[in-house]
């Protein structure tokens, strides 16, 4: 794929930013229009959770896509996509905190401790916080590439925990969480494949490349 000009990349990023806001904007619109359905809190909670997972998977697909399409510039979108996953999970968590528990911290703690799907969900959310906090250029410089890389590899665990969260909260029909699981498996699988191929073609210490 041809590398777009820097000015074009700016426009592409703006467009992607606007697109990423669409699910949230739709929820806000529906909230004011009163068309969030019979159980509005459930609708918002489910939608923001779904989009958190979707953005996590989209973020995880940047690296395979940029290799496949030979489009290194796609990396420039990854931080925004990852931060939107964080944005949606913040809304998701806040809705749960306010409307399921109304700031009853003891009940919140009890849920996190006793309900496996909330344990993994909360853990995934908590793990995303340092990733969001170290997403800036300044932070990358401060940590150094190697350390930053190591920290941000937690996104694999976060993806797994997120899928488990969905799988374990569904009553019986696991089809939708299984689709997310399948996509995640592919996105993690290609990285395993790539790593194996790297080891085979360069048995002596391979050059450290910016991959994740």
């Amino acid at each position, binding site marked *: 794929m041809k590398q777009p000009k820097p000015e074009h990349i700016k426009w592409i990023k703006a467009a992607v930013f606007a697109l990423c806001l669409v699910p949230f904007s739709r929820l806000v619109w529906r909230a004011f229009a009163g068309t969030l359905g*019979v*159980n509005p809190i459930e609708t918002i909670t489910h939608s923001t959770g779904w989009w958190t997972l979707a953005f996590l998977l989209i973020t995880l697909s940047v690296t395979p896509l940029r290799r496949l399409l030979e489009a290194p510039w796609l990396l420039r979108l990854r931080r925004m996509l990852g931060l939107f996953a964080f944005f949606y999970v913040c809304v998701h968590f806040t809705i749960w905190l306010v409307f399921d528990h109304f700031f009853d911290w003891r009940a919140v703690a009890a849920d996190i401790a006793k*309900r496996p799907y909330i344990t993994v969900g909360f853990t995934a959310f908590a793990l995303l916080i340092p990733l969001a906090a170290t997403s800036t250029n300044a932070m990358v410089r401060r940590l150094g590439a190697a350390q930053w890389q190591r920290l941000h590899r937690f996104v694999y665990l976060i993806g797994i925990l997120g899928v488990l969260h969905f799988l374990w909260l569904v*009553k*019986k029909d696991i089809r939708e969480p299984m689709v997310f699981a399948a996509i995640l498996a592919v996105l993690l699988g290609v990285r395993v494949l790539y790593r194996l191929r790297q080891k085979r073609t360069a048995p002596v210490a391979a050059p450290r490349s910016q991959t994740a």
Partner: protein
Amino acid sequence: MLIRKPADILPSEITSRAVYARRREFIKSAAALGLAAGLSPVAIQPAAAAAKLAPLAKSAFSTDEKMTPFEAVTTYNNFYEFGTGKEDPSRRAGSLRTRPWTVKIDGEVKKPRTFDIEELLKLAPLEERIYRMRCVEGWSMVIPWIGYPLSELIKRVEPTGNARFVEFTTLLDPVQMPGQKVGVLDWPYIEGLRMDEAMHSLTILTVGLYGEVLPNQNGAPVRVVVPWKYGFKSAKSIVRIRFTAEMPKTAWMVAVPSEYGFYSNVNPKVDHPRWSQAKERRIGDLLKRETLMFNGYGDQVAGLYAGMDLRKYF
């Protein structure tokens, strides 16, 4: 005494309120399909004949809590026979044919027989029962059901001494109920009650809600409502009632025995293995409220379970 005049229009021919409310949509799509020539759309039966059911006796068992709006009661449903989404049943239940309809009563009874739905509608005086309904998922509603005590039907068929349980079977027809093509539950849907639960004055054979016959998505044309248990115990679109000596193998028990028991009494102290049952979201409220033991019907039903370990017999 009110003498009902014979109507020349069958209840099943009256356009349902739900369809009537979207009549412009139907007319537009009928025209678009070139059906303006007067052929009736074959696939969809006038969904759930919304005949008015009257007269209705008021009941002392009714709650005076605020009722959940008709719109919510009829568009937010768990009826996996039509799909697992909450809005699937209201969208897809038009394919359910509620006439003709019969309910076969058999098993441990002296007078086994099959009832036509029209007979069941007239078996006993219809009452309005405004009940709380608590779903195992953690939401609840207040619904003005129309029916009469199930005991009225039971005493007519004279259960024998061996009848310890009552088993309800829902229609099995994947053509009318396309959700049955998906094996999310074993079909047909089976539910059951202990004899004393079935004979309890709170348990009603239900034929309507909000003054009209049941919409398809709410379990037309006849269902049972057991308000002190989680909503899945209130079997819908019943075609068979069987009296047995053995405990029925109910659908959710079979599907996930560690999570759904036979009794499934509403109990804030016994959590679902995966989520808490201490609170519920009353549809229409933003914040959750405390769940009540036996869904607030403890005064009427606690005696049925005296001495029972409700954690063991969940």
